């Protein structure tokens, strides 16, 4: 089945999300759709899957125009979407999720789970997906959950699959397995749209590529005819340098030290197990790992948001295991939270108010019990200038800034103070390429001033780019440590450690036990 999009435009208020887009999806082919966050990829695909309707333009299926009024229509036309955020019911089994909406029944509305299971199993084996059909979704790793999403669209006999940022949550090894499935689907004659912002993936899997920028198609063709740099330039609109020019680090005194830290949650499940790590002044330490392997808990333990169950946390020679968040904060711990919307900023507050969230009590902005707003505003304005936060005014609601500027605002607030340790969790998630470069440079600059920097990221490239040393977390433990001075760490070995299979095999690095010593 071939699909053609002609002249698609879509506007949300003042934002032109898609403008006059022409796109062709052919059977037995992988079309790579490349673009930054906010370039309009998701909008376009939501139009194709019937969730939104286009303002102008038409969709042709095998040459004849089709009109979609809801998600049901696109499914009926053989188009299946695998969303970036999984649309799975966590407490249902795999079979129940797959059949939801098109359930086989017998008798009076009786759910025929036997028949359903057989059909699901058949698809499962045909494409080599190896999904346990009766397991509950919440018990499955994300890689498998993603296959359930694919099973879902295949069960609805989709001929065209839209995969929205499918590799964002996978380890490098899982990505390989995933590509194998994608190739099997393509060889079976399915048309596949592969949406991503990762260039090397496009070069690896796509048969054709279209690049989207600010809602418009800015280039398309055979990926083989482009280099990574070409694609990046098309995607961003200007030449991009990928690596931050990072000088040799000069490791100083130990700033942060965790010794035997374990953390159990309310249900008595282990979230952190015997963590030993150290961060020295003048170095960047990266924590790699697939999301949900204890990184969030580690950050909460270091910043004081959760109390550790056992073990000790030392900061610049003092024991801070029992210190409060405020105490740690005043000692010089800065925290860039992983989700700025949830815990980094208040969307309804102005930029100036957000900038003073971590120091509103400080004498520098108060007189008696009052906040001196003049000083707050002046300070915020100065910080906006020095940290490249592009806002027309500090009186504007922070929620109306772009993701990149919001994140730079959070970074400015945290780094502006006198700090000794920066804990940056997913510092560039949902941020445009320009801001990513800027934030990375700020973090490196912080390191060069002799501060300790701890970066937690699920983007392995980010970790490899910035870190002098790398710890890999798996199921709440430090699974491996790597030395990355001069970029020497083995990407593949890190990937294996992220998947939990490298116990004891990583070269040139100690095991989880050797606390403190630089590997």
């Amino acid at each position, binding site marked *: 089945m071939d699909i053609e999009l002609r002249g698609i435009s879509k506007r949300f208020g003042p934002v032109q999300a898609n403008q006059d887009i022409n796109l062709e999806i052919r059977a037995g082919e992988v079309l790579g759709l490349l673009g930054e966050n906010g370039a309009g990829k998701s909008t376009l695909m939501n139009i194709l899957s019937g969730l939104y309707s286009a303002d102008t333009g038409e969709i042709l299926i095998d040459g004849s125009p089709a009109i979609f009024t809801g998600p049901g229509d696109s499914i009926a036309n053989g188009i299946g979407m695998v969303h970036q955020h999984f649309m799975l019911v966590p407490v249902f089994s795999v079979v129940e999720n797959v059949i939801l*909406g098109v359930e086989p029944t017998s008798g009076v509305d009786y759910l025929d789970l036997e028949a359903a299971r057989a059909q699901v199993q058949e698809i499962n084996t045909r494409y080599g997906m190896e999904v346990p059909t009766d397991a509950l979704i919440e018990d499955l790793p994300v890689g498998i959950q993603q296959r359930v999403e694919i099973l879902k669209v295949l069960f609805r006999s989709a001929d065209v699959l839209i995969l929205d940022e499918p590799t964002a949550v996978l380890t490098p090894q899982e990505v390989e397995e995933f590509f194998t499935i994608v190739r099997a689907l393509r060889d079976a004659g399915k048309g596949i749209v592969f949406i991503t912002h990762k260039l090397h993936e496009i070069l690896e899997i796509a048969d054709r590529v279209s690049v989207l920028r600010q809602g418009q198609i800015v280039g398309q063709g055979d990926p083989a005819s482009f280099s990574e740099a070409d694609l990046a330039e098309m995607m961003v609109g200007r030449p991009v340098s990928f690596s931050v020019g990072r000088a040799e680090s000069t490791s100083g005194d130990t700033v942060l030290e965790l010794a035997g830290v374990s953390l159990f949650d309310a249900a008595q499940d282990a979230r952190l197990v015997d963590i030993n790590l150290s961060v020295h002044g003048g170095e960047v330490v990266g924590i790699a790992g697939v999301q949900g392997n204890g990184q969030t808990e580690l950050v909460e333990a270091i910043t004081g948001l959760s109390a550790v169950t056992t073990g000790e946390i030392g900061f610049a020679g003092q024991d801070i295991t029992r210190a409060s968040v405020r105490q740690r904060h005043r000692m010089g711990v800065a925290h860039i939270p992983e989700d700025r919307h949830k815990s980094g900023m208040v969307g309804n507050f102005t930029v100036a108010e957000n900038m003073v969230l971590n120091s509103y009590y400080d004498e520098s902005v108060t007189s008696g019990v009052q906040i001196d707003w003049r000083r707050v505003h002046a300070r915020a304005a100065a910080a906006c200038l020095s940290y490249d936060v592009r806002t027309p005014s500090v009186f504007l609601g922070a929620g109306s800034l772009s993701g990149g500027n919001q994140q730079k605002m959070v970074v400015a607030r945290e780094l502006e103070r006198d700090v000794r340790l920066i804990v940056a969790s997913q510092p560039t998630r949902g941020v445009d390429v320009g801001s990513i470069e800027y934030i990375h440079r700020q973090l490196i600059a912080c390191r060069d001033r002799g501060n300790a920097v701890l970066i937690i990221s699920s983007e392995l490239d980010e970790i490899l780019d910035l870190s002098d040393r790398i710890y890999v977390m798996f199921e709440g433990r430090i699974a491996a440590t790597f030395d990355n001075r001069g970029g020497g760490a083995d990407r593949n070995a890190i990937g294996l450690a992220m998947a939990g299979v490298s116990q004891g095999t990583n070269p040139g690095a100690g095991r989880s036990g050797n606390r403190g010593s630089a590997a």
Partner: protein
Amino acid sequence: MGDAVSRQEAGPRLIDWRASVSGGVLIALALVVAFLLDTPWDSVSTFRISRPRDVWAVGNLTVPSQWFNVAASVLLAFLGTRLFLKGGGRWTAVALGIGLVVLAMAFLVWATAGKAISLTGMLQATVVRAVPIALAALGGILCERVGVINIAIEGMLLAGAFAGAMFGSLMGGWAGIICAMITGGVFGLLLAALVITYRVDQIIAGVVINLFVLGLTSYVSSQVFAEYRWLNKASPFRSFKIPVLGDIPLIGPVLFNQNLFVYGALILVTLSTYYLFHTRHGLRARAVGEHPRAADTLGIDVIKTRYAHVIVAGMVAGFGGAWFTLGSVGRFDENMTFGRGFIGLAAMIFGRWHPLGALAAALIFGFADSLQQKLSILNTPIPSEFLSMAPYIATIVVVAGLVGQARPPAAIGKPYVKE
């Protein structure tokens, strides 16, 4: 350095709080049974099972009171100590449940020492009193399974009781039931419109409906019914015995010699269990309550599903409300539901949003209710006001989660907005 720190090694500071608290409670109960529920050593508690005109007569159950309570106290102390010292894990809830049952039995034996009560009568009352609670819980389940919190159940019960009495007086019992269900359904529709279409906070909308129904029915009953008494004089449904089954000792009178509402509640619980867990539409409804966006992307109409379930829940609650008037006295009194709707919601949580679980929970509350009634007849030294608190104390214990954590449907309380 050790590779792994197992849970035991890591855990001097790890305390299973739930098990410790439960263990402490059980030990305290053992002390209560041992020292407060004292009877002479030679006294005997008698429980009558058969009644004078039963077809198959069965002898009475007699228990030596003090011996029984000593045994109960030892059992409670054993369970409590075990929980306290070893932790319970998943057995905490079970141990606590056994403990509470033992306590209830010990209490009953103590209260009847040297006297006799009818066990059959008490269980029969338990079932009767469980009916409105079970129906309220069922209404709650139907709403919450699709993601709508239904605090308005109390108001729907009251509206059903009122409509049952008034239309029952005017047009007879069956018409009364139908009108009660329609009235419940109308309030269901009102709640649905408020919370689904207009996205009013679900708790606030529910409270508003409760207050509205309370005010309206109180006004009409004090102003109109007082004047025109024939408007509030319905003839209640009598119980009828199912042939053969109704003659079985103990079980017969308890389950098969009841009125329409008891049979109706049992049928509705069975039907909704089948519906929710074995049909296509039940699966879809649960998906709407867990992950409405996922359901929407699969072509399931979230709004329509929610409307339908909230309205049906209102009708179930309306039927439950009719129990208060058409199922017992035939007359409506101000605020006669006395918070049974809220207890129904507690039964829903206790029963983990499963109709059968909710029925079991409703039976426990019904038992507490009938226990209070029997004990005030038996003339125990405990003031009956304290005994009437029993169901509410049980509710607090249940909702506080001491009896195991319950996980509500994930989308509960959140209005669904299409992007």
